[in-house]
């Protein structure tokens, strides 16, 4: 176990279950994206390894879809590098880009299969289209379409149907089959389950979980729903206004979040847990002394290039220290040991987070001046 101390250093393999020896399938370094003059992503560092599911969470406008689209080459990258299996994907243009796309290494699954699947085409043609575009001969194509449909557990009798005549869960499977038919290395799934009911949602989640193991696939799942990710994700990255505010092993991020925004997301999810109520009340009440930055209601997405902590205006623990943007730093304490950390009195400049080198979980980083001290103020 090694501890990274340089703030901007790329993350080590996080889970602890596997050594960090294997190179990342997807490596994003310092990625910035802007639409016109509106920055959407500011300096994102992220990695996804083969066989791993990385969950990407955040609210509408946080930039999570843009992040995935940037990897797929659908967003205007202004800075940073995106490498997939060692190749710089961000630099591809024209013919090279088309060739890379035909190779099918990176697959992006749109949020709504009803819109991303051509309503006039049958399931067989939809799933076979990437192969047909890549020029795979018909006989081999049919074989691989059958294999892909089998892999996602779709009844072969459905191959002659059009998307309108499938259920929501079946449509999502068609989209998945189409994504894996070209044997990709990286799958980016944008809200793959948000439109499905619980049972179908779990079907698709299980499928993702199985596919990444069977195909040794790196999977990035975008979601605004923590619960759907919690079952399958190995690591979770929390995006707020174009910046990653926390990332680390799924269990730690979900159960002992070190960024107040991650905690807010967790507390806001509908749950039968009575304890979350009090936490939610605390977490969604901004501190009176917080620097006033940005619009209310998260309505201003243009926070990516601001010099302050983007969350400060909503943060219950914000103070003057938050007027400076925090860097993502390795988490400073083992999960669960937060109670002893003292919280700075409001109004006084807080000390920068203390890096505790011993026993800190690797790969868990958080961009918050008051982490983990703020956790002491959570209702017990």
């Amino acid at each position, binding site marked *: 176990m090694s501890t990274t101390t340089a703030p901007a250093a790329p993350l080590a393999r996080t889970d602890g279950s596997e050594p960090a020896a294997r190179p990342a399938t997807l490596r994003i370094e310092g990625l910035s994206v802007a639409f016109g003059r509106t920055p959407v992503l500011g300096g994102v560092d992220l990695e996804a390894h083969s066989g791993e599911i990385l969950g990407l969470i955040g*609210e*509408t406008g946080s930039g999570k879809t843009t992040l995935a689209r940037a990897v*797929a080459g*659908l967003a205007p990258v202004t800075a940073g590098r995106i490498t997939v299996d060692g190749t710089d994907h961000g630099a591809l243009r024209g013919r090279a880009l*088309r*060739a890379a*796309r*035909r*190779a*099918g290494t990176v*697959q992006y699954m*749109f949020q*709504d299969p*009803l*819109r*991303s*699947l051509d309503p*006039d085409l049958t399931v067989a043609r939809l799933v076979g*289209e*990437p192969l047909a*575009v*890549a020029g795979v001969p018909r006989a081999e194509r049919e074989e691989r379409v059958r294999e892909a449909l089998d892999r996602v557990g779709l009844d072969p009798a459905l191959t002659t149907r059009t998307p309108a005549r499938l*259920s*929501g869960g079946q449509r999502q499977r068609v989209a998945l089959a189409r994504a894996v038919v*070209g044997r990709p290395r990286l799958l980016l799934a944008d809200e793959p389950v948000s*439109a499905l*009911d*619980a*049972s*179908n949602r*779990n*079907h698709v*989640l299980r499928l993702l*979980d199985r596919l990444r193991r069977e195909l040794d696939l790196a999977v990035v799942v975008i979601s*605004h729903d923590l*619960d759907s990710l*919690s*079952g*399958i994700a190995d690591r979770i990255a929390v995006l707020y206004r174009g910046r990653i505010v926390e990332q680390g092993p799924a*269990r730690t991020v*979900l*159960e002992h979040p070190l960024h107040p925004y991650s905690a*807010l*997301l*967790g*507390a806001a*999810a*509908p*749950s*039968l*847990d*009575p*304890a*979350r*109520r009090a936490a939610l009340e605390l*977490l*969604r009440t901004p501190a009176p002394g917080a620097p006033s930055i940005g619009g209310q*209601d*998260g*309505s201003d997405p243009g926070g990516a290039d601001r010099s302050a902590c983007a969350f400060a205006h909503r943060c219950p623990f914000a103070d003057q220290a938050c007027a400076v943007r925090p860097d993502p730093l390795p988490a400073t304490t083992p999960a669960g040991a937060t109670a002893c950390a003292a919280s700075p009195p409001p109004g006084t400049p807080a000390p920068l987070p203390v890096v505790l080198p011993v026993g800190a979980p690797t790969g868990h980083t958080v961009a918050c001046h008051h982490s983990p001290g703020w956790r002491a103020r959570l209702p017990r």
Partner: protein
Amino acid sequence: MNALRTTLRVPLARVALAALGVVLLLALFGDRLAPMDPLAQDPSAILHNPGGGHLLGTDYLGRDVLSRLLAGTGLSVLAAAEAVAVAALLGVVPGLLSVRFGSTGSWLALRSVDALMTLPFTLFAIAAVGLLGNGLHQAMIALGVLLSPLFFRVVRAAALGLDRAQYVEAAELMGASRAWILRVHTWRKVLPTVAVTTAHALATSLLTVSSLTFLGIGVQPPAPTWGGMLASDLGFLAQQPWAPAVPTFLIMVTIGALNLLADVLADADRTDTAALGAPAGEPAGKTSGKKGALPTTTAGARTAGTEPSGGPHPPADDAALRVEGLHVTVGGGRTEAVRDVSFTVRPGEALGLVGESGSGKTLTCRSVLGLLAPGVAVSAGRITLGAAAPDAASGSPGAAEPAGPTGPAELTGLTDRAWQQVRGDRLGAVFQDPGSYLNPSLTVGRQLGEPLRLRLGLSRDEARRRAVELFEAVGLRDPQTVHDSYPHELSGGMLQRVLIAVAVSGDPGLLVADEATTALDTVVQAEVLDLLDGLRKRRGLALLLVSHDLAVVADVCDRILVFYAGEIVEEGPTAEVIARPAHPYTEALLQVASLGRRHRREPAVIPGRPPEPGTAGPGCRFADRCAYATPDCTGSGISLTPVGGSGGDGTRRVRCVRAEDLALTGAWGAGTPEAPGTTVTTPTAPHHRTEAPV
């Protein structure tokens, strides 16, 4: 093509097609059918009336009118077709390609098209003929050029929309070429548009061919055409009315049939698109939904800000909504999608409807709102809205008495007009996609204030004040600014609050929330749920909440109805149902729902699929997916019966023959005794869970 099949189902379309078929036959074989030589003149029989071997009489040169008419069809129709073919070629191809022209290319193409469109058909054709020499083909090419903008514009518009379609983007991500996208994805979508335009263009060009021949351009006498006959015989209208009247009639019929067909084709295309665009389970109903979401207001509407907390709570037996034996059919009455649903909602109570998609919860909810899509209907049952809440707690004692009736209202079989009254005053509703229920070109304050002014006769200032108060009551910060904002300036959560303000502006007794928080972010969802809960408590509002998310329902609702395959399978107080489900399906739902469980696990699923509507057998509809099924389960109908052990007051009901002998697992794990206090907030045994998530 689907559009064609849909078209053929419309009787008028069949009439139009038949008429066009006859015209086509005449065009092909007319000259052979002509009883006489259409050019043969008979000086002895000039301008004869019908009879004596001339069925339609003779013209001013003694030629047989019927023969000329039949022989002239071919030339008239084929000429029109030629012009349309030229127009389609010149319009469709550039139209498709223009999407990729770049800004300069597009500008040039559009301006040329604009220029072409300013030219009058007849004058241009005369000029072209003067330039190219007089002849039918010259005239038709000229006409085709002038008609091409028609095709260009519609095809370009369609292609522009398609170019932004997600499946086109998906194809680009596969590395598909432009040609591939045009061939596989775009072309087929443009075809219906092209078909509609062709029918319109044919009509236009037939008319123009006729007027051109009337002017002596294109076809030269003595060759017969419909327009030519009209031109030459019109002067003799008084002596022989048949000669000009019959070609006029044929021209009218043909053009009428073409326009009719174009209209039906366009409609069919729209219907198809609508059917594809609507997510399964919530088809259409949008247009009428707008009415429902923008209710008008009664006199005596209370201002929310001045509301004393803990408003009036009428006696429990006085239901806010009572649904009895509701049956809903889909597919024009053929298939039963909701069977025998009965429940009540008491004032101030929150009732949750849960179930998988297609379980009938949404149809039930939409029946209550009177917002069923075409082809979906309430076939039996009663839906009764309770008496309007007494106005005792009104903060404005001087307010006028409510204008509408306040007694219980039967909702089944209401007229549209009566529905509007009910939706405005007694029933409010919020839906999943708030943006689509607001007019983008009006400020939200105006959309809330106008109905208030209309119904209450408020002045502009009073309406504004009341609207701002309502916005404040639904927790919108800075309500003055919100009042003057357009929908696009507000976030999804704010829009949903605006719609909630609209829904409660009439001070309804019942608020229906149909997946109202599904599209919202978690944090915003929690806020909106809190708001709904707060409104319920402050105003004694009954809440009917439909959601596919059991955790949402459990969070807000006092009681739950679990739907499966169109039936209620379990009903009871939320805490009891969750702690000790009585129906195996409820148990399965609890297993698959997240309910805030955050530990690593394999997500549970319910094997199999629910039966398609109308295919269920007589017995339990869940039997084939149920782990506890016995042969008894599928034999005969199973009724919803009160389940023992919970007071037996009839509020806990279950549709399962084995309900008494099964010990099912609840949200807190197996064998958990009933949660004391019967509220969700005091779980007895959270041993099942890992540490608190925060």
